[in-house]
């Protein structure tokens, strides 16, 4: 029996497909998320839109708060560590979280290196804006990739950009010089060859960053996302429980506009959202980590 193979880590990502992973900051929200049909919750002290507003250093959440959520829901519980902060990751593994998000939403701990994720038993998810970034993270041991989008913005434009970029760069590999691409993306040739052949990432590919409505979720699924993360979009809206239910239904039936319509019908206002032009470059979460 083995416990630590890469396939076991990717196995959990496989189970999360076709679902919604919701940011929650306390037990009550976690229960609302589970009751709405979330496949997993991301336990964190402050959701991205509040991190953006509050400023200061954003770190791994208080383990006590994560533990309380673990004790109260049966679905997998994820938590975030800072980019490169392998000690935070070790603590989260000791806490037995089900997935670690090495996240650009938190303040970076290492400006040059991400966590070496291979030695961990717990799987990691990492954000990416393009194929090179996605494959560098996979090479470091990430079992799941998500778009970075722009967390806490309520604006889907960056997630769309990142998902389309990854898709088109995978397509480009059909006719590209693969060894040049391996050099450009700073990853081994075998990894590039595998992606060129299969025409998909070696691990599941989810969407995150700016998803606020059932239509946003459907859009990302139709663009090729296999599951969506919803951060501030649910608990910053006027009707978190209804919106959570609606987004779950929209992801399950994203191919059928009538189902998405029915799910959207009675919702109140979504979170307000921010224009990308109103976020200074140095304050964009998605620029953190490469």
């Amino acid at each position: 029996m083995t416990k630590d193979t890469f396939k076991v880590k990717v196995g959990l990502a496989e189970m999360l497909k076709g679902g919604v992973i919701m940011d929650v900051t306390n037990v009550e929200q976690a229960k609302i998320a589970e009751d709405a049909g979330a496949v997993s919750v991301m336990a964190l002290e402050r959701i991205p839109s509040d991190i953006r507003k509050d400023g200061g250093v954003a770190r791994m959440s208080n383990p006590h708060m994560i533990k309380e959520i673990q004790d109260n829901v049966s679905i997998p519980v994820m938590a975030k560590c800072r980019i490169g902060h392998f000690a935070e990751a070790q603590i989260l593994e000791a806490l037995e979280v089900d997935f670690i998000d090495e996240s650009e939403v938190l303040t970076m701990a290492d400006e040059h290196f991400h966590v070496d994720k291979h030695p961990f038993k717990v799987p990691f998810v990492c954000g990416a804006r393009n194929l090179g970034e996605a494959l560098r993270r996979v090479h470091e041991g990430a079992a799941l990739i998500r778009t970075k989008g722009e967390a806490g913005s309520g604006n889907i434009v960056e997630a769309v950009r990142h998902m389309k970029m990854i898709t088109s760069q995978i397509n480009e590999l059909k006719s590209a010089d693969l060894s040049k691409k391996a050099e450009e993306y700073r990853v081994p040739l075998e990894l590039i060859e595998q992606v060129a052949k299969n025409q998909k990432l070696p691990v599941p590919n989810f969407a995150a960053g700016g998803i606020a409505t059932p239509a946003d979720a459907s859009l990302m699924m139709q663009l090729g996302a296999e599951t969506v993360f919803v951060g501030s979009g649910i608990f910053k809206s006027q009707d978190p429980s209804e919106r959570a239910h609606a987004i779950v239904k929209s992801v399950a039936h994203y191919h059928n506009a009538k189902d998405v319509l029915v799910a959207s019908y009675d919702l109140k206002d979504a979170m307000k959202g921010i224009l990308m032009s109103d976020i200074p470059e140095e304050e964009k979460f998605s620029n953190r980590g490469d």
Partner: protein
Amino acid sequence: MIGVLALQGNFQSHLNILEKINLESLQVKSVKDLDRISGLIIPGGESTTMSKLLDNSNFVSEIKEFAKNNPILGSCAGAIIMSRNSFDERVLNLGLLDIEIDRNAYGRQVFSFSDKIQVIDGKNKSLCEVLFIRAPKIISVGNDCSVFALRNDEIIGVRQGKHFAITCHPELMHETKIHEMCFKSN
């Protein structure tokens, strides 16, 4: 044609296995899809999520009706949903197999693992590589059931009539044996 319930979970890997053993397949997203198929797979995923989505779309009575004449294979969350009882009000149990099952019984993801299991097909026994992902455990088996998969001495696969339930994931290791038993020689 064999359907794979495609509301949530790893339905795509089951579709790949069906293609590998030359069976036509269909993603089952709504009740009317059941009319087109002669067998169904309930895949792994989150059993709470699948329960919610099944309950919302009056699938329950239709799947029970379908099960009277057609085989159903459940893997992991699918096995939980097919069972008689999983002791959790958040989860739906269709009672297609007389088994009781305990959710996430090995612990959280850090206790997930890969292993070889023994698959029993009549007099033939073979080994199969599988993944156990936050897997459930079968804790009781009714008299009308028979065991078709073991991990050492532990019962991990049970059949009753046409229906099969297994607590792990052969499909993620590209194993076809169990799908063949359920849909080709059943």
